[in-house]
Protein backbone atom coordinates (compact mmCIF):
# COMPACT_ATOMS: atom_id res chain seq x y z
CA UNK A 1 0.00 0.00 0.00
CA UNK A 2 1.65 3.18 -1.14
CA UNK A 3 0.68 6.80 -0.77
CA UNK A 4 1.87 7.36 -4.33
CA UNK A 5 -1.37 6.05 -5.84
CA UNK A 6 -3.51 8.19 -3.54
CA UNK A 7 -5.67 10.16 -3.95
CA UNK A 8 -7.80 8.92 -6.86
CA UNK A 9 -8.75 11.22 -9.73
CA UNK A 10 -11.66 12.64 -7.74
CA UNK A 11 -9.36 13.48 -4.85
CA UNK A 12 -10.33 10.67 -2.48
CA UNK A 13 -7.94 8.94 -0.10
CA UNK A 14 -10.12 5.93 0.56
CA UNK A 15 -13.34 7.41 1.97
CA UNK A 16 -11.74 10.79 2.67
CA UNK A 17 -11.12 13.97 0.72
CA UNK A 18 -13.02 14.89 -2.44
CA UNK A 19 -14.39 18.26 -3.45
CA UNK A 20 -17.23 19.44 -1.23
CA UNK A 21 -17.62 23.08 -2.16
CA UNK A 22 -20.59 25.23 -3.11
CA UNK A 23 -21.05 25.49 -6.86
CA UNK A 24 -19.71 29.08 -7.18
CA UNK A 25 -16.29 27.77 -6.04
CA UNK A 26 -16.31 24.59 -8.08
CA UNK A 27 -14.86 26.02 -11.27
CA UNK A 28 -11.99 27.69 -9.38
CA UNK A 29 -11.10 24.41 -7.67
CA UNK A 30 -11.28 22.56 -10.99
CA UNK A 31 -9.06 25.19 -12.64
CA UNK A 32 -6.53 24.76 -9.84
CA UNK A 33 -6.57 20.98 -10.16
CA UNK A 34 -6.00 21.17 -13.90
CA UNK A 35 -3.15 23.65 -13.49
CA UNK A 36 -1.46 21.60 -10.79
CA UNK A 37 -1.82 18.28 -12.61
CA UNK A 38 -0.20 19.80 -15.69
CA UNK A 39 2.78 21.05 -13.65
CA UNK A 40 3.12 18.19 -11.20
CA UNK A 41 5.47 16.16 -13.36
CA UNK A 42 7.04 19.11 -15.18
CA UNK A 43 10.81 18.94 -14.53
CA UNK A 44 11.22 22.69 -15.05
CA UNK A 45 8.63 23.43 -12.38
CA UNK A 46 10.37 21.08 -9.94
CA UNK A 47 13.76 22.56 -10.81
CA UNK A 48 12.58 26.10 -10.12
CA UNK A 49 11.15 25.07 -6.76
CA UNK A 50 14.27 23.10 -5.78
CA UNK A 51 16.53 26.03 -6.63
CA UNK A 52 14.44 28.37 -4.49
CA UNK A 53 14.37 25.91 -1.62
CA UNK A 54 18.17 25.64 -1.78
CA UNK A 55 19.12 29.31 -2.04
CA UNK A 56 16.20 31.08 -0.39
CA UNK A 57 14.87 28.65 2.21
CA UNK A 58 18.21 27.05 3.08
CA UNK A 59 17.39 23.42 2.27
CA UNK A 60 18.29 20.73 2.98
CA UNK A 61 17.62 21.22 6.67
CA UNK A 62 19.98 19.19 8.86
CA UNK A 63 19.23 16.20 11.02
CA UNK A 64 20.57 16.67 14.52
CA UNK A 65 21.33 13.99 17.10
CA UNK A 66 19.83 15.35 20.32
CA UNK A 67 22.05 13.52 22.81
CA UNK A 68 20.79 15.04 26.03
CA UNK A 69 17.15 14.63 25.02
CA UNK A 70 18.04 11.03 24.10
CA UNK A 71 19.22 10.45 27.63
CA UNK A 72 16.17 12.18 29.05
CA UNK A 73 13.69 10.19 26.98
CA UNK A 74 15.53 6.85 26.89
CA UNK A 75 16.05 6.35 23.16
CA UNK A 76 18.17 7.84 20.37
CA UNK A 77 16.42 11.08 19.44
CA UNK A 78 17.13 12.78 16.14
CA UNK A 79 15.55 16.08 15.15
CA UNK A 80 14.74 17.10 11.58
CA UNK A 81 15.50 20.79 11.89
CA UNK A 82 12.66 22.45 9.92
CA UNK A 83 12.91 25.22 12.51
CA UNK A 84 16.11 26.31 10.76
CA UNK A 85 14.31 27.08 7.48
CA UNK A 86 13.88 30.66 6.40
CA UNK A 87 10.83 32.01 8.33
CA UNK A 88 11.33 29.31 10.96
CA UNK A 89 9.04 26.44 9.99
CA UNK A 90 8.21 23.83 7.37
CA UNK A 91 5.37 26.00 6.09
CA UNK A 92 7.68 27.83 3.69
CA UNK A 93 8.16 24.67 1.58
CA UNK A 94 4.51 24.67 0.58
CA UNK A 95 4.29 28.44 0.17
CA UNK A 96 7.21 28.43 -2.27
CA UNK A 97 5.57 25.74 -4.39
CA UNK A 98 2.12 27.26 -4.43
CA UNK A 99 3.22 30.82 -5.19
CA UNK A 100 4.98 29.51 -8.29
CA UNK A 101 1.81 27.70 -9.30
CA UNK A 102 -0.20 30.90 -8.70
CA UNK A 103 2.17 32.90 -10.90
CA UNK A 104 1.97 30.33 -13.70
CA UNK A 105 -1.84 30.41 -13.47
CA UNK A 106 -1.70 34.18 -14.02
CA UNK A 107 -3.17 35.03 -10.62
CA UNK A 108 -2.24 38.45 -9.26
CA UNK A 109 -3.51 38.40 -5.67
CA UNK A 110 -2.93 35.93 -2.86
CA UNK A 111 -5.10 35.11 0.13
CA UNK A 112 -4.31 32.72 2.96
CA UNK A 113 -5.58 31.58 6.34
CA UNK A 114 -3.34 31.13 9.32
CA UNK A 115 -3.61 29.78 12.84
CA UNK A 116 -0.26 30.12 14.58
CA UNK A 117 0.83 32.61 11.95
CA UNK A 118 3.63 30.44 10.55
CA UNK A 119 1.77 29.78 7.31
CA UNK A 120 0.75 33.43 7.18
CA UNK A 121 4.36 34.52 7.58
CA UNK A 122 5.50 32.03 4.93
CA UNK A 123 2.83 33.28 2.53
CA UNK A 124 3.58 36.94 3.23
CA UNK A 125 7.25 36.15 2.62
CA UNK A 126 6.83 34.55 -0.79
CA UNK A 127 4.35 37.27 -1.78
CA UNK A 128 6.93 39.93 -0.93
CA UNK A 129 9.44 38.08 -3.07
CA UNK A 130 6.97 37.82 -5.98
CA UNK A 131 5.61 41.34 -5.58
CA UNK A 132 2.04 40.10 -5.11
CA UNK A 133 -0.53 41.68 -2.76
CA UNK A 134 -1.39 39.36 0.10
CA UNK A 135 -4.31 39.20 2.54
CA UNK A 136 -4.05 36.83 5.50
CA UNK A 137 -7.18 35.81 7.40
CA UNK A 138 -6.52 35.14 11.05
CA UNK A 139 -8.85 34.50 13.97
CA UNK A 140 -9.11 37.35 16.46
CA UNK A 141 -8.11 34.95 19.27
CA UNK A 142 -5.02 33.85 17.38
CA UNK A 143 -4.04 37.44 16.60
CA UNK A 144 -3.87 38.00 20.34
CA UNK A 145 -1.76 34.97 21.18
CA UNK A 146 0.55 35.12 18.14
CA UNK A 147 1.17 38.86 18.12
CA UNK A 148 4.78 38.54 17.01
CA UNK A 149 3.85 36.72 13.81
CA UNK A 150 1.17 39.32 13.12
CA UNK A 151 3.82 42.03 13.24
CA UNK A 152 6.11 40.00 11.01
CA UNK A 153 3.40 39.62 8.38
CA UNK A 154 2.70 43.35 8.45
CA UNK A 155 6.39 44.16 8.04
CA UNK A 156 6.45 41.84 5.05
CA UNK A 157 3.69 43.91 3.47
CA UNK A 158 0.72 41.61 4.04
CA UNK A 159 -2.68 42.84 5.08
CA UNK A 160 -4.09 41.07 8.14
CA UNK A 161 -7.85 40.48 8.13
CA UNK A 162 -9.03 39.67 11.68
CA UNK A 163 -11.84 37.12 11.83
CA UNK A 164 -14.17 37.71 14.76
CA UNK A 165 -17.06 35.43 13.78
CA UNK A 166 -17.44 31.91 15.15
CA UNK A 167 -14.71 30.89 17.56
CA UNK A 168 -12.12 33.33 16.20
CA UNK A 169 -9.62 30.58 15.39
CA UNK A 170 -8.25 28.73 12.39
CA UNK A 171 -11.52 27.16 11.20
CA UNK A 172 -13.19 30.55 11.05
CA UNK A 173 -10.20 32.02 9.23
CA UNK A 174 -10.66 29.28 6.62
CA UNK A 175 -14.36 30.11 6.25
CA UNK A 176 -13.56 33.75 5.72
CA UNK A 177 -10.81 33.03 3.20
CA UNK A 178 -13.27 30.86 1.24
CA UNK A 179 -15.75 33.75 1.24
CA UNK A 180 -13.07 36.08 -0.14
CA UNK A 181 -12.02 33.53 -2.75
CA UNK A 182 -15.52 32.93 -4.11
CA UNK A 183 -15.98 36.65 -4.66
CA UNK A 184 -12.60 37.10 -6.34
CA UNK A 185 -11.91 33.85 -8.20
CA UNK A 186 -10.80 35.51 -11.42
CA UNK A 187 -7.60 37.09 -10.10
CA UNK A 188 -7.14 35.57 -6.64
CA UNK A 189 -5.20 32.47 -5.63
CA UNK A 190 -6.09 30.88 -2.29
CA UNK A 191 -2.88 29.55 -0.75
CA UNK A 192 -3.95 26.92 1.80
CA UNK A 193 -1.28 25.97 4.32
CA UNK A 194 -2.42 22.54 5.52
CA UNK A 195 -3.18 19.17 3.94
CA UNK A 196 -6.85 20.12 4.16
CA UNK A 197 -9.53 21.70 2.00
CA UNK A 198 -10.95 20.47 -1.30
CA UNK A 199 -8.87 18.40 -3.72
CA UNK A 200 -6.22 19.20 -4.99
CA UNK A 201 -5.05 21.03 -1.84
CA UNK A 202 -4.36 17.96 0.34
CA UNK A 203 -2.37 16.41 -2.52
CA UNK A 204 -0.55 19.61 -3.39
CA UNK A 205 0.42 20.61 0.14
CA UNK A 206 1.64 17.05 0.76
CA UNK A 207 3.70 17.08 -2.44
CA UNK A 208 5.33 20.42 -1.64
CA UNK A 209 6.26 19.28 1.86
CA UNK A 210 7.38 15.80 0.81
CA UNK A 211 10.86 17.31 0.40
CA UNK A 212 11.23 16.93 4.18
CA UNK A 213 10.74 13.18 4.04
CA UNK A 214 12.84 12.71 0.92
CA UNK A 215 15.75 14.44 2.65
CA UNK A 216 15.34 12.28 5.76
CA UNK A 217 15.44 9.10 3.73
CA UNK A 218 18.83 10.17 2.36
CA UNK A 219 20.18 11.79 5.49
CA UNK A 220 19.46 9.09 8.06
CA UNK A 221 21.58 6.29 6.53
CA UNK A 222 24.40 8.73 5.90
CA UNK A 223 24.34 10.23 9.40
CA UNK A 224 23.21 7.29 11.51
CA UNK A 225 23.72 4.25 9.32
CA UNK A 226 20.06 3.30 9.44
CA UNK A 227 16.55 4.51 8.80
CA UNK A 228 14.67 5.47 11.97
CA UNK A 229 12.60 2.91 13.87
CA UNK A 230 9.88 5.51 14.34
CA UNK A 231 9.08 8.97 13.01
CA UNK A 232 7.00 11.42 15.03
CA UNK A 233 5.33 14.59 13.76
CA UNK A 234 2.49 16.84 14.91
CA UNK A 235 -0.97 17.18 13.38
CA UNK A 236 -4.11 19.15 14.31
CA UNK A 237 -7.64 18.03 15.22
CA UNK A 238 -9.90 15.16 14.28
CA UNK A 239 -12.02 12.48 15.90
CA UNK A 240 -13.58 9.21 14.89
CA UNK A 241 -16.65 10.77 13.30
CA UNK A 242 -16.81 11.33 9.55
CA UNK A 243 -18.11 14.65 8.34
CA UNK A 244 -17.93 17.31 5.65
CA UNK A 245 -16.19 20.65 6.25
CA UNK A 246 -14.05 23.09 4.31
CA UNK A 247 -14.39 21.28 1.03
CA UNK A 248 -13.43 17.82 2.28
CA UNK A 249 -14.84 14.72 3.91
CA UNK A 250 -12.72 13.58 6.84
CA UNK A 251 -12.76 12.96 10.56
CA UNK A 252 -14.22 16.00 12.32
CA UNK A 253 -14.82 17.14 15.85
CA UNK A 254 -18.57 17.69 15.81
CA UNK A 255 -21.72 17.23 17.86
CA UNK A 256 -24.57 14.80 17.20
CA UNK A 257 -26.27 17.41 14.98
CA UNK A 258 -23.21 17.81 12.73
CA UNK A 259 -22.27 21.22 14.14
CA UNK A 260 -18.52 21.72 14.23
CA UNK A 261 -17.09 21.86 17.74
CA UNK A 262 -15.04 24.71 19.07
CA UNK A 263 -11.53 23.41 19.76
CA UNK A 264 -8.89 24.28 22.27
CA UNK A 265 -5.16 23.74 21.99
CA UNK A 266 -2.17 25.46 23.51
CA UNK A 267 -0.74 25.45 19.98
CA UNK A 268 -2.69 27.79 17.70
CA UNK A 269 -1.45 25.88 14.67
CA UNK A 270 -3.16 22.69 15.84
CA UNK A 271 -6.36 24.37 17.01
CA UNK A 272 -8.53 22.95 14.26
CA UNK A 273 -11.50 20.55 14.38
CA UNK A 274 -10.55 18.36 11.42
CA UNK A 275 -7.68 16.28 10.18
CA UNK A 276 -6.53 16.19 6.56
CA UNK A 277 -8.09 13.43 4.44
CA UNK A 278 -4.83 11.60 3.84
CA UNK A 279 -4.24 11.44 7.59
CA UNK A 280 -7.74 10.02 8.00
CA UNK A 281 -6.86 7.38 5.40
CA UNK A 282 -3.48 6.61 6.98
CA UNK A 283 -5.32 6.16 10.25
CA UNK A 284 -7.82 3.78 8.63
CA UNK A 285 -5.07 1.71 7.04
CA UNK A 286 -3.08 1.58 10.27
CA UNK A 287 0.05 2.94 8.57
CA UNK A 288 0.24 5.85 11.03
CA UNK A 289 -0.68 5.89 14.69
CA UNK A 290 -2.38 9.05 15.96
CA UNK A 291 -1.99 10.00 19.61
CA UNK A 292 -2.87 13.02 21.71
CA UNK A 293 -0.74 15.17 24.01
CA UNK A 294 -2.02 17.34 26.85
CA UNK A 295 -1.01 20.98 27.21
CA UNK A 296 1.05 20.09 30.29
CA UNK A 297 2.92 17.33 28.47
CA UNK A 298 3.59 19.77 25.65
CA UNK A 299 4.97 22.43 27.98
CA UNK A 300 7.20 19.85 29.66
CA UNK A 301 8.55 18.82 26.26
CA UNK A 302 9.08 22.47 25.32
CA UNK A 303 11.10 23.01 28.48
CA UNK A 304 13.13 19.82 28.05
CA UNK A 305 14.09 20.66 24.48
CA UNK A 306 14.95 24.25 25.42
CA UNK A 307 17.04 23.41 28.51
CA UNK A 308 18.70 20.23 27.30
CA UNK A 309 19.35 21.09 23.66
CA UNK A 310 19.25 24.87 23.46
CA UNK A 311 16.41 24.69 20.94
CA UNK A 312 13.08 26.44 21.56
CA UNK A 313 10.58 24.30 19.65
CA UNK A 314 7.25 25.57 18.37
CA UNK A 315 4.43 24.42 20.67
CA UNK A 316 3.09 22.49 17.68
CA UNK A 317 6.39 20.59 17.35
CA UNK A 318 6.51 20.10 21.12
CA UNK A 319 3.43 17.86 20.71
CA UNK A 320 5.61 15.46 18.72
CA UNK A 321 8.40 15.66 21.31
CA UNK A 322 5.89 14.90 24.05
CA UNK A 323 5.30 11.46 22.54
CA UNK A 324 8.97 10.37 22.39
CA UNK A 325 8.99 8.88 25.87
CA UNK A 326 6.03 6.72 24.97
CA UNK A 327 7.84 5.38 21.91
CA UNK A 328 11.03 4.83 23.92
CA UNK A 329 9.09 2.76 26.45
CA UNK A 330 7.77 0.67 23.63
CA UNK A 331 10.86 0.25 21.44
CA UNK A 332 13.70 0.40 23.97
CA UNK A 333 16.75 2.55 24.48
CA UNK A 334 18.48 1.64 21.23
CA UNK A 335 15.54 2.72 19.13
CA UNK A 336 16.25 5.46 16.63
CA UNK A 337 13.44 7.99 16.82
CA UNK A 338 13.23 10.84 14.34
CA UNK A 339 11.14 13.83 15.37
CA UNK A 340 10.06 16.44 12.86
CA UNK A 341 10.92 19.68 14.63
CA UNK A 342 8.51 21.50 12.35
CA UNK A 343 9.10 25.02 13.62
CA UNK A 344 10.81 27.30 16.08
CA UNK A 345 9.17 28.46 19.28
CA UNK A 346 9.96 32.17 19.31
CA UNK A 347 6.36 32.92 18.33
CA UNK A 348 5.14 31.09 21.46
CA UNK A 349 7.09 32.97 24.13
CA UNK A 350 4.05 34.86 25.41
CA UNK A 351 1.97 31.69 25.71
CA UNK A 352 4.73 29.74 27.43
CA UNK A 353 5.67 32.53 29.86
CA UNK A 354 2.04 33.09 30.78
CA UNK A 355 1.55 29.38 31.52
CA UNK A 356 4.81 29.11 33.44
CA UNK A 357 3.60 31.73 35.94
CA UNK A 358 0.71 29.51 36.97
Amino acid at each position, binding site marked *: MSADNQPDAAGFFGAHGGVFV*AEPLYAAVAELDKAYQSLRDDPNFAKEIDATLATYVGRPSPIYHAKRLSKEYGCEVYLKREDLNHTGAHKINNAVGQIMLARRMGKTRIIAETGAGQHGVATATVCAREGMPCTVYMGAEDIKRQAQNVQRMRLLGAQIAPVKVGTGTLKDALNEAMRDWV*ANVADTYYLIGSVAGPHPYPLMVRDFNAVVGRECVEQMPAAVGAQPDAVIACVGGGSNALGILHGMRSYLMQDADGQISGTSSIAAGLDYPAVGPEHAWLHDTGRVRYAAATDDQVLAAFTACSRLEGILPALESAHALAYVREVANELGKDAIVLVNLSGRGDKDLATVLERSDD
Partner: protein
Amino acid sequence: MTSRIAATFTAAGRPLLIPYLTAGWPDLAATGPLLRALEAGGADVIEIGVPFSDPSADGPVIQQANQQALAAGANLKSVLDAVADYRHRGGKLPIVLMGYANPFYRYGFTQLAASCQTVGVDAILAVDLPPCDDDGLGVPLGGAGVDRVVLIATTTPDERAKQIAKRGSGYIYYVALQGVTGSATLDPDQTAANAKRLRNLSDLPVAVGFGIRSAQDCRRLGAHFDAVIVGSRLLEEIRDAKDNAASAATALLADMREALT
Protein backbone atom coordinates in the same frame (compact mmCIF):
# COMPACT_ATOMS: atom_id res chain seq x y z
CA MET B 1 -45.86 11.67 -10.07
CA THR B 2 -45.64 15.43 -10.27
CA SER B 3 -44.06 16.94 -7.22
CA ARG B 4 -45.72 19.73 -5.29
CA ILE B 5 -42.94 22.06 -6.44
CA ALA B 6 -43.35 21.15 -10.11
CA ALA B 7 -47.11 21.60 -9.81
CA THR B 8 -46.63 25.01 -8.22
CA PHE B 9 -44.46 26.21 -11.10
CA THR B 10 -46.88 24.84 -13.68
CA ALA B 11 -49.98 26.31 -12.06
CA ALA B 12 -48.62 29.79 -11.41
CA GLY B 13 -48.37 31.21 -14.91
CA ARG B 14 -46.09 33.91 -13.51
CA PRO B 15 -42.68 34.05 -11.85
CA LEU B 16 -42.73 32.63 -8.33
CA LEU B 17 -41.52 34.34 -5.18
CA ILE B 18 -39.28 32.21 -2.96
CA PRO B 19 -38.21 33.66 0.39
CA TYR B 20 -35.35 32.15 2.39
CA LEU B 21 -35.62 32.01 6.18
CA THR B 22 -33.06 30.64 8.64
CA ALA B 23 -34.89 28.20 10.90
CA GLY B 24 -34.85 28.79 14.66
CA TRP B 25 -34.02 32.44 14.22
CA PRO B 26 -34.18 34.78 16.07
CA ASP B 27 -35.42 31.98 18.35
CA LEU B 28 -37.12 28.60 18.03
CA ALA B 29 -40.61 29.97 18.61
CA ALA B 30 -40.25 32.55 15.82
CA THR B 31 -40.19 30.11 12.90
CA GLY B 32 -43.86 29.11 12.87
CA PRO B 33 -45.26 32.66 12.87
CA LEU B 34 -42.66 33.77 10.33
CA LEU B 35 -43.53 30.93 7.93
CA ARG B 36 -47.18 31.98 8.09
CA ALA B 37 -46.18 35.62 7.65
CA LEU B 38 -44.29 34.71 4.47
CA GLU B 39 -47.28 32.76 3.21
CA ALA B 40 -49.51 35.76 3.96
CA GLY B 41 -47.16 38.00 2.00
CA GLY B 42 -47.54 35.88 -1.12
CA ALA B 43 -44.64 33.41 -0.97
CA ASP B 44 -45.04 30.56 -3.45
CA VAL B 45 -42.31 28.26 -2.09
CA ILE B 46 -40.26 28.68 1.10
CA GLU B 47 -36.60 27.82 1.50
CA ILE B 48 -35.83 27.06 5.13
CA GLY B 49 -32.20 27.39 6.09
CA VAL B 50 -30.82 24.66 8.36
CA PRO B 51 -28.37 26.45 10.68
CA PHE B 52 -24.72 25.43 10.52
CA SER B 53 -21.69 26.43 12.59
CA ASP B 54 -19.51 27.15 9.54
CA PRO B 55 -21.60 28.74 6.79
CA SER B 56 -18.69 29.46 4.45
CA ALA B 57 -20.84 30.43 1.45
CA ASP B 58 -22.84 33.02 3.36
CA GLY B 59 -22.36 36.71 4.02
CA PRO B 60 -22.60 38.42 7.42
CA VAL B 61 -26.41 38.62 7.64
CA ILE B 62 -27.05 34.90 7.18
CA GLN B 63 -23.90 33.99 9.16
CA GLN B 64 -25.26 35.88 12.13
CA ALA B 65 -28.69 34.30 11.78
CA ASN B 66 -27.03 30.86 11.75
CA GLN B 67 -25.05 31.61 14.89
CA GLN B 68 -28.04 33.02 16.74
CA ALA B 69 -30.24 30.09 15.71
CA LEU B 70 -27.67 27.60 16.98
CA ALA B 71 -27.35 29.56 20.22
CA ALA B 72 -31.14 29.36 20.54
CA GLY B 73 -30.91 25.57 20.31
CA ALA B 74 -31.89 24.99 16.68
CA ASN B 75 -30.79 21.79 14.95
CA LEU B 76 -31.94 19.68 12.02
CA LYS B 77 -34.46 17.90 14.24
CA SER B 78 -36.02 21.17 15.38
CA VAL B 79 -36.20 22.33 11.75
CA LEU B 80 -38.08 19.16 10.78
CA ASP B 81 -40.36 19.67 13.77
CA ALA B 82 -41.07 23.22 12.63
CA VAL B 83 -42.10 21.95 9.20
CA ALA B 84 -44.29 19.26 10.77
CA ASP B 85 -45.97 21.95 12.86
CA TYR B 86 -46.44 24.18 9.81
CA ARG B 87 -48.17 21.31 7.99
CA HIS B 88 -50.20 20.39 11.06
CA ARG B 89 -51.60 23.91 11.11
CA GLY B 90 -52.61 23.64 7.47
CA GLY B 91 -49.57 25.20 5.77
CA LYS B 92 -49.67 24.20 2.11
CA LEU B 93 -46.61 25.83 0.51
CA PRO B 94 -43.79 23.68 -0.85
CA ILE B 95 -40.86 23.67 1.59
CA VAL B 96 -37.20 23.33 0.61
CA LEU B 97 -34.59 22.63 3.29
CA MET B 98 -31.43 24.45 2.32
CA GLY B 99 -28.27 23.79 4.26
CA TYR B 100 -24.66 22.72 4.38
CA ALA B 101 -23.88 19.07 3.84
CA ASN B 102 -22.61 18.13 7.29
CA PRO B 103 -25.81 18.27 9.37
CA PHE B 104 -27.59 16.30 6.59
CA TYR B 105 -24.69 13.87 6.38
CA ARG B 106 -24.58 13.36 10.11
CA TYR B 107 -28.34 12.79 10.24
CA GLY B 108 -27.95 10.24 7.45
CA PHE B 109 -29.16 10.85 3.89
CA THR B 110 -31.56 7.89 3.92
CA GLN B 111 -33.02 8.91 7.26
CA LEU B 112 -33.23 12.50 6.00
CA ALA B 113 -35.21 11.47 2.93
CA ALA B 114 -37.59 9.45 5.08
CA SER B 115 -38.06 12.31 7.57
CA CYS B 116 -38.73 14.76 4.72
CA GLN B 117 -41.41 12.46 3.37
CA THR B 118 -42.96 12.09 6.83
CA VAL B 119 -43.12 15.76 7.83
CA GLY B 120 -43.80 17.18 4.38
CA VAL B 121 -40.51 18.69 3.22
CA ASP B 122 -40.62 18.87 -0.57
CA ALA B 123 -36.95 19.29 -1.46
CA ILE B 124 -33.40 19.36 -0.20
CA LEU B 125 -30.69 21.76 -1.30
CA ALA B 126 -27.27 20.70 0.04
CA VAL B 127 -25.07 23.70 -0.64
CA ASP B 128 -21.64 22.06 -0.51
CA LEU B 129 -22.52 18.62 -1.81
CA PRO B 130 -21.87 18.83 -5.56
CA PRO B 131 -24.38 16.51 -7.25
CA CYS B 132 -22.79 13.38 -8.68
CA ASP B 133 -23.96 9.82 -9.18
CA ASP B 134 -22.43 8.40 -6.03
CA ASP B 135 -22.91 11.33 -3.66
CA GLY B 136 -25.37 9.23 -1.68
CA LEU B 137 -28.14 11.83 -1.56
CA GLY B 138 -29.84 11.57 -4.94
CA VAL B 139 -30.99 7.97 -4.63
CA PRO B 140 -32.71 8.17 -1.22
CA LEU B 141 -34.37 11.49 -2.09
CA GLY B 142 -35.64 10.06 -5.37
CA GLY B 143 -36.96 6.99 -3.58
CA ALA B 144 -38.87 9.14 -1.09
CA GLY B 145 -40.29 11.44 -3.76
CA VAL B 146 -38.34 14.41 -2.41
CA ASP B 147 -36.94 16.86 -4.96
CA ARG B 148 -33.30 17.84 -5.06
CA VAL B 149 -32.77 21.51 -5.84
CA VAL B 150 -29.35 22.11 -7.42
CA LEU B 151 -27.08 25.13 -7.67
CA ILE B 152 -25.63 26.48 -10.89
CA ALA B 153 -23.26 29.46 -10.77
CA THR B 154 -22.15 32.08 -13.27
CA THR B 155 -18.82 30.24 -13.40
CA THR B 156 -20.34 26.78 -14.05
CA PRO B 157 -19.35 25.61 -17.53
CA ASP B 158 -22.19 24.49 -19.84
CA GLU B 159 -21.30 20.81 -19.85
CA ARG B 160 -21.15 20.69 -16.05
CA ALA B 161 -24.38 22.68 -15.77
CA LYS B 162 -26.10 20.04 -17.92
CA GLN B 163 -24.82 17.25 -15.69
CA ILE B 164 -25.96 19.07 -12.55
CA ALA B 165 -29.39 19.81 -14.00
CA LYS B 166 -29.83 16.11 -14.86
CA ARG B 167 -29.40 15.24 -11.20
CA GLY B 168 -31.70 18.01 -10.02
CA SER B 169 -35.47 18.25 -9.75
CA GLY B 170 -37.95 20.86 -8.60
CA TYR B 171 -35.92 23.81 -9.82
CA ILE B 172 -32.42 25.04 -10.53
CA TYR B 173 -31.14 27.67 -8.10
CA TYR B 174 -29.12 30.01 -10.26
CA VAL B 175 -26.52 31.83 -8.15
CA ALA B 176 -26.45 35.12 -9.99
CA LEU B 177 -23.58 36.68 -8.06
CA GLN B 178 -20.06 35.34 -7.82
CA GLY B 179 -19.71 35.83 -4.06
CA VAL B 180 -21.38 35.05 -0.76
CA THR B 181 -25.05 35.65 0.02
CA GLY B 182 -26.04 39.28 0.38
CA SER B 183 -22.63 40.52 -0.68
CA ALA B 184 -23.52 42.97 -3.44
CA THR B 185 -26.25 44.28 -5.63
CA LEU B 186 -26.99 42.36 -8.74
CA ASP B 187 -26.84 43.75 -12.26
CA PRO B 188 -30.30 42.67 -13.48
CA ASP B 189 -29.52 43.21 -17.17
CA GLN B 190 -26.46 41.04 -17.15
CA THR B 191 -28.25 38.40 -15.08
CA ALA B 192 -31.11 38.39 -17.57
CA ALA B 193 -28.64 37.67 -20.36
CA ASN B 194 -27.40 34.62 -18.45
CA ALA B 195 -30.94 33.27 -18.13
CA LYS B 196 -30.89 32.37 -21.84
CA ARG B 197 -27.88 30.14 -21.39
CA LEU B 198 -29.66 28.10 -18.72
CA ARG B 199 -32.79 27.71 -20.83
CA ASN B 200 -30.75 25.90 -23.44
CA LEU B 201 -29.25 23.52 -20.90
CA SER B 202 -32.25 22.17 -19.04
CA ASP B 203 -36.04 22.02 -18.96
CA LEU B 204 -36.17 22.54 -15.18
CA PRO B 205 -37.60 25.83 -13.92
CA VAL B 206 -34.83 28.30 -13.04
CA ALA B 207 -35.00 30.40 -9.88
CA VAL B 208 -32.54 33.26 -9.48
CA GLY B 209 -31.00 34.26 -6.17
CA PHE B 210 -28.16 36.21 -4.48
CA GLY B 211 -28.28 40.01 -4.50
CA ILE B 212 -32.03 40.54 -5.00
CA ARG B 213 -33.05 43.46 -2.82
CA SER B 214 -36.14 45.20 -4.13
CA ALA B 215 -39.49 44.85 -5.87
CA GLN B 216 -37.83 46.42 -8.88
CA ASP B 217 -35.15 43.69 -8.92
CA CYS B 218 -37.95 41.14 -8.76
CA ARG B 219 -39.82 42.72 -11.66
CA ARG B 220 -36.78 42.93 -13.91
CA LEU B 221 -35.52 39.41 -13.14
CA GLY B 222 -39.00 37.91 -13.10
CA ALA B 223 -39.22 38.73 -16.79
CA HIS B 224 -36.41 36.22 -17.48
CA PHE B 225 -36.58 33.61 -14.71
CA ASP B 226 -39.24 31.27 -13.36
CA ALA B 227 -38.73 32.45 -9.80
CA VAL B 228 -36.82 34.94 -7.69
CA ILE B 229 -35.29 34.08 -4.33
CA VAL B 230 -34.89 36.65 -1.57
CA GLY B 231 -32.76 35.82 1.47
CA SER B 232 -30.43 38.31 3.12
CA ARG B 233 -32.74 41.24 2.35
CA LEU B 234 -35.61 39.47 4.11
CA LEU B 235 -33.49 38.59 7.13
CA GLU B 236 -32.39 42.23 7.43
CA GLU B 237 -36.05 43.28 7.43
CA ILE B 238 -36.90 40.74 10.15
CA ARG B 239 -33.83 41.64 12.20
CA ASP B 240 -34.51 45.39 12.09
CA ALA B 241 -38.25 45.13 12.73
CA LYS B 242 -37.70 43.26 16.01
CA ASP B 243 -41.17 42.89 17.61
CA ASN B 244 -42.94 43.60 14.33
CA ALA B 245 -40.93 41.03 12.41
CA ALA B 246 -43.90 39.07 11.09
CA SER B 247 -45.77 42.05 9.70
CA ALA B 248 -42.57 43.53 8.26
CA ALA B 249 -41.82 40.25 6.49
CA THR B 250 -45.34 40.08 5.12
CA ALA B 251 -45.12 43.67 3.86
CA LEU B 252 -41.76 43.16 2.14
CA LEU B 253 -42.96 40.03 0.39
CA ALA B 254 -46.30 41.58 -0.62
CA ASP B 255 -44.39 44.41 -2.25
CA MET B 256 -42.16 41.99 -4.14
CA ARG B 257 -45.03 39.68 -5.01
CA GLU B 258 -46.92 42.53 -6.61
CA ALA B 259 -43.97 43.07 -8.93
CA LEU B 260 -44.18 39.48 -10.16
CA THR B 261 -47.18 39.35 -12.43
